[in-house]
Every structure is written in structure tokens, then in C-alpha cells.
């Protein structure tokens, strides 16, 4: 009997979970965030990659801004603008709520390049400035086939701009403005609250009917399931978001 009960309850909870999970929009697949330089297209020599990583780490240490350089093997038919902001959101580059993240995206096979700027850095790194960096520093090298050199030149320009202290006051004012209110309970926490409530109700029923049921512990089991696979990546995004700011170029 309790087997049946567990099964009933299981299917019910499954329906519950389905009801609160939102159907995801069609989105491209993204490479794993393996570090500050993600060279999926394999166009940056290892030594250059290490140097860049160290400098990007230094940038975050001194300004808490996250800049990630990524080369993409395929945009999967998406425009780089479409791909870029979704990648930034998927990785959560930049500080949460302040949105101080930047992606420097190069898609050598589609010959597209983009600087994707998080909401919080748009006053510091405007569309026009991003465009100028691409046009003057990056695209000439890319057109000459010097992909790695173009990436380094772009990274230099971006790091320089992002390290400027004079703009920090402006950036901070803007970040406060875009910081969006208090945290609201998301669907996952509501789900957990619901499970705990069910758990308590089950306990009460068990106490009233004087029967101990094995489904008593079932919600606990469900809670534990989501907690597997602790990532060991030394670098990860901090929850920043993107809204299409920045500039793109082609060569």
C-alpha cells in the first residue's frame, strides 16, 4: 500500500514540478566556461592564453569587473549579437545585480567579432567606444589573418579602458541605478517551500492516523537530488546580466 502511495505522490510531485518549470526558449548551445579565456575555436597559442588569463585575473582583482575572452567554433546560425548576450547571461559574467561583465567574442569561422557589454558597464564602455576599439585595434589584425594578435590588441584596449579610475564614479552611479531591487523568491525556492509544507502535512497526518509512512522522508530525498556535481572550476561568473550593449564587427 505504501508503495502505491509513494507512486501516487511521486507522480503528483512530478506534475507539480512540471507546472512551475517554465518552458525554455530555443537557445544556442554554449561552450563550457573553463576559464577567463575560452578558446573553443583554438586560435590562441597556449602561452598567449596563459598571459591573457593572468591579466584578466588582475583586472578582476583590482576592479571586480569580469572580462572573458571567448572564441567560438560555430555560431550555430545565430547572429553574433543574438549569441553574445545569451552567452553572457548563460555564464553570468560580471557581478550579480551590478552586471559588470564583458565578453570579447571572436567567431573566426563566421568572421564575426563582438564586444558584449553588461548593463552596468555601458556608461564606461559605450557602443561607440566598443565599435572604435574593434575598428581600430582588432579588425585590422583580423583582416591580416593575425587572429591572436587582434585578440590581444582588443584585450589590451579593453583592459586599459576598464582600469581607468576616472570613470569609476560614473560607473558606480550607473550601477546603483541599474541594480534592480530586492531579491524575489524564485520558482525553485517556492518549490522547496512547497515541499517542506507537504512534508509537515504528511507528518501531521502520520501523527493523527498513528501510522508511520515511508513517504515521510520522500521530500528530503527530492531536495538532495539537485545538489550533486559540485563544480571545481576555479573561475565562474558571478551572476551578471547583459542587454545587447556593445558593438560588433565583421572581416
Amino acid at each position, binding site marked *: 500500500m505504501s508503495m502505491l502511495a509513494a507512486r501516487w*505522490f511521486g507522480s*503528483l510531485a512530478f506534475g507539480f514540478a512540471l507546472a512551475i518549470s517554465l518552458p525554455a526558449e530555443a537557445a544556442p548551445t554554449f561552450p563550457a566556461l573553463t576559464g577567463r579565456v575560452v578558446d573553443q575555436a583554438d586560435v590562441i597559442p597556449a602561452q598567449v592564453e596563459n598571459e591573457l588569463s593572468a591579466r584578466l585575473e588582475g583586472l578582476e582583482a583590482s576592479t571586480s569587473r569580469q572580462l572573458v575572452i571567448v572564441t567560438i567554433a560555430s555560431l550555430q546560425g545565430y547572429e553574433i549579437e543574438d549569441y553574445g548576450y545569451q552567452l553572457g547571461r548563460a555564464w553570468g559574467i560580471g557581478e550579480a545585480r551590478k552586471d559588470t561583465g564583458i565578453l570579447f567574442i571572436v567567431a573566426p569561422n563566421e568572421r564575426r567579432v563582438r564586444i558584449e557589454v553588461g548593463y552596468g558597464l555601458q556608461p564606461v564602455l559605450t557602443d561607440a567606444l566598443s565599435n*572604435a576599439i574593434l575598428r581600430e585595434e582588432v579588425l585590422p589584425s583580423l583582416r591580416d589573418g593575425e587572429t591572436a594578435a587582434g585578440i590581444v590588441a582588443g584585450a589590451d584596449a579593453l583592459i586599459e579602458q576598464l582600469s581607468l579610475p576616472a570613470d569609476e564614479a560614473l560607473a558606480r552611479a550607473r550601477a546603483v541605478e541599474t541594480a534592480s531591487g530586492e531579491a*524575489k523568491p524564485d520558482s525553485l525556492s517556492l518549490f522547496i517551500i512547497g515541499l517542506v509544507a507537504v512534508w509537515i502535512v504528511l507528518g501531521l497526518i502520520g501523527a493523527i492516523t498513528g501510522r508511520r509512512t515511508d513517504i515521510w522522508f520522500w521530500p528530503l530525498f527530492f531536495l538532495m537530488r539537485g545538489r550533486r556535481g559540485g563544480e571545481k572550476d576555479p573561475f565562474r561568473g558571478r551572476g551578471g546580466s547583459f542587454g545587447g*550593449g556593445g558593438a560588433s564587427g565583421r572581416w
Partner: protein
Amino acid sequence: MNKLLKQLLPIIGILVLIPVVMAIFSVNTIPAKEERAKAAWADVQSQYQRRADLIPNLVATVSGYAQQEKDVLVAVTQARASATQIKVDLSTLTDPAAFEKYRAAQDQLSGVLGRLLAISENYPDLKSNQNFLTLQSQLEGTENRIGVARRDFNEAVRVYNTELRTFPGVIWAATIYGSSKPMQLFEAATTAQEAPKVEFPSTAPPSDKTP
């Protein structure tokens, strides 16, 4: 038989209680999602406003180099005027006719603006003008942000509209939030739908965007 009923009783109790618990916990969901959709709408509007603010400067710059393209320049100015004349407030969101008017005016402006930028390709002096390059990149960035803001708005509205029509939100929508109406979505631009498509019979399966 009696024993079976006694064993089933807690299960029936759970079956009744779970929807009740769900409904109680979701009492604030409609206003929360409504506010999120409104915030997304504010973002769409501010991006459109930013574009409208950039246009006079662009028109002035282009007309300095391409006086003979008066038709397009006038068209851009007029489209901007009619787009900014439309009064929008939150009631626009739930009014299909008003929303469609707003969308159509903004899309019209996008169209003529695209034409103006395409024409400027024919003027090398203009293309190398620093002011023009800046304006062009700002406009491109703004158009891109408009796209993202519109998609985010659509997503927020979709979530909100779904909440109004599905359990348990539908209970609250019918009772204490009777004034919360479904909102309109941005449809794909009509030009995108009009793109001619030539299809050949093929044995290969259609390629998927997300492999």
C-alpha cells in the same frame, strides 16, 4: 473494505491539500509577474527613446554630405515624429489596437532608418566621417538593445499571461486580481515574415538551429 478506506484517507487528504498549498503560496505571483512585465516594458520604451534622441543628430550629419538624399532624410524625420507622437502608458499594454499602432510606428521608423544607413554606404566621405561612425555604432547598438529588450518583454509577458490563465493563478485572477488583464506581445516584424522563400523538395532532413 473499511481498512482500505482508512489507509487511503491520508492520501486523499494530500491530494486535496497540495493544490490548496500551491494556491496559497502563489497569491503574490500575479502582481510580481505583472511588475516584471512592466519593468521590461519600461526598458523597451527607454531604448526606443534613446533611438529617437539619436536621430536628429544623424539626420543633420548625413544631410551635410548627402543633400540629394532628401527623400529618405525627410522620411526618417517624419517617421520619427509620428513614432514619438504616439502617447503610450501602461494601458497601451492591454489594448491590442493601441499597442499595434505603437509597434507599427516604431517598426516603420526602423525600416526607413535602415534605408538611410544603407544609402550612406554610397558616400565615402560620409563613411569616413568620425561623427557619422559614432552615430552609426550608437544606432546599431540601440537597435540591438531594442531587439533584446523586446524579447525580454515578450518573455516576461508570456510568463505573466500564462500565470493568469493557468492554475493556481487563474483562481486569483478571477477573484482579487480581477483588474489584471493579459498584455500584448511584440510580433515578429512584418518584413521578416515577408521574406521570400524558395523551397525545393529535398530528401535531407531540415537543419536544426540547435544541434
